[in-house]
């Protein structure tokens, strides 16, 4: 009976991952076909074999990068959220709480403020990444000094506040209304008008970050029983903190660098999945990655399909869709946050 129960939970885990993957494929195909110009699968297939050039531009140069970035960014946010919640043993932890997103945002806004973004297309994402890395270096320094989860969270909130204050200062002193609106729009988060070069820019950082985060599963499991027990089980806490915080910074820094701030996905994705996988931190990681990607792909699809005279910003939509759903979830589940 014990063996069957263990096998059943394995099968369940595979089913969840398969189901989420199928959902992702569906959303991606929809993302490629739907939009201002809706295409049928046949048209899309036809143009792949050298048909209409106009359609090729729409699908390959406009929609493909957008769909790919949406998946990558959502996956990064979901995975980082799950890993950080495991590391800090705090269900409120999310990439935003460490100040990494806000610091990346500051870097990007400074690039816009000083006009660097006009000099080179790489200036903005590179500045955003530098911002994220700076914040991470500070947090890593703290993590190495045996800081408690609470002091890490406090430090993150402080970094975040500082970055937001400096961002506000840049907005405050904006040279002209155009620059101001450019910065504000960027901060709201969007996948519009991104190219394959943006995908190429983020992939190395995200790949490294994902590897760091996914490798931490068992150590995060051990942390379920607290830090002393985890250490007695052979976990090196300093190294684990560096990997998780560094992994989250790489992925979320890269994500913020190309899409602006997109909140809430990192918080909600692990929460949605946790009860389904028995709350074990290592088992939450991969499903959260998939669910984060699905959430962002669905939100972006909504952004493109909801007819408004100006396209809605993605960061706004994820929060507008996510928060009421999350509140409903909190009210419905009797169990308080574990």
């Amino acid at each position, binding site marked *: 009976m014990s063996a069957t129960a*263990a096998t059943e939970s394995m099968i369940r885990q595979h089913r969840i991952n398969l189901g989420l993957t199928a959902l992702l494929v569906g959303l991606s195909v929809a993302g490629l076909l739907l939009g201002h110009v809706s295409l049928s699968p046949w048209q899309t297939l036809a143009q792949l074999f050298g048909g209409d050039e106009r359609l090729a531009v729409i699908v390959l140069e406009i929609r493909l990068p957008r769909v790919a970035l949406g998946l990558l960014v959502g996956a990064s946010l979901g995975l980082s959220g799950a890993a950080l919640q495991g590391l800090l043993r705090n269900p409120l932890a999310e990439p935003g709480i460490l100040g990494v997103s806000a610091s990346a945002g500051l870097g990007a806004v400074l690039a816009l403020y000083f006009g660097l973004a006009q000099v080179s297309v790489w200036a903005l994402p590179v500045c955003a990444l530098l911002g994220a890395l700076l914040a991470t270096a500070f947090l890593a320094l703290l993590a190495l000094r045996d800081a408690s989860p609470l002091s890490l969270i406090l430090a993150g909130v402080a970094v975040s506040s500082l970055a937001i204050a400096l961002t506000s200062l840049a907005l405050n002193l904006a040279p002209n209304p155009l620059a101001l609106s450019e910065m504000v729009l960027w901060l709201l988060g969007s996948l519009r008008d991104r190219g394959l070069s943006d995908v190429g820019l983020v992939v190395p950082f995200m790949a490294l970050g994902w590897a760091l985060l996914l490798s931490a599963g068992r150590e995060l499991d051990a942390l379920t029983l607290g830090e002393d027990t985890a250490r*007695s089980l052979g976990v090196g806490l300093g190294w684990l903190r560096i990997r998780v915080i560094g992994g989250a910074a790489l992925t979320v820094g890269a994500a913020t660098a190309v899409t602006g701030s997109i909140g809430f996905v990192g918080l909600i994705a692990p929460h949605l999945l946790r009860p389904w996988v028995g709350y074990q931190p290592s088992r939450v990681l991969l499903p959260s990655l998939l669910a984060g990607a699905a959430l962002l792909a669905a939100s972006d699809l909504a952004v493109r399909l909801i007819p408004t005279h100006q396209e809605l910003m993605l960061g706004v939509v994820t929060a507008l869709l996510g928060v009421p759903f999350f509140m409903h979830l909190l009210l419905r589940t009797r169990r308080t946050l574990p």
Partner: protein
Amino acid sequence: MILLDAEQISVQLAGQRVVNGVSLQAAAGQLVALLGPNGAGKTTLLAALAGLRPFQGRVRIQGRALASLSRREKARTLAYLPQGQIAHWPLTVRRLVELGRLPHLAPWQPPAAADRLAVASVLHRTGIAELAERSFDTLSGGERARTLLARVLAVEAPLVLADEPVAALDPFHQLQVMELLRDYADGGAAVIVVLHDLTLAARFCDELILLREGALAARGAPATVLSAAQLADTYRIAALHGEQDGQYYVLPWKRQTPESAAL
């Protein structure tokens, strides 16, 4: 065979010396109690022996210096149950106990047959096999205590350090936990357990180590360590002593007042 040999252990916490030059040994098959009033340094000493607090002195495990063991070797040799352990996520009993196998797992590999067997065996021995698929947060205090103990025993380490494993348990479960530790020691391991209950310590342990204000006050067989004079000195209590079925027992009875001490 001496499994744990600690010499002149001193620990400072926030600049204050909490443990002061304590030496102790534990041999295979021995259940050793670490006793002392609140604040005597028991928990700190145990954590230092587990390599979780910086200390001065020398700790050798199976003849090798603690510091020379790799993290994984140390984790396989020494299992540690902290005081007042909680689970941050409501895992099932089985998955929580499985955490004890982490030091044995090969990277990226699922638990091997030996790991599953060890978990099944320890679930059975601790009497929680029927609870295996229950969520930890739905368990009673006694069930939680057994689950956490099962996690420690699942490591199958030759040395077990347990900090107050019977705190807040009813007498039935206190006896059950002590029996489990006794059985584990009888199987060839060395077990050091921090206790406040002198009766249980005298009843189940081979050797008692009594701490007072961070230093060693007494060490030896229960009847010698828990002598009337020692109890008066260290715990400021008087106790009933006796024998039942050829076994020595002690029962704390009266607080010592300044007047009675003068007599």
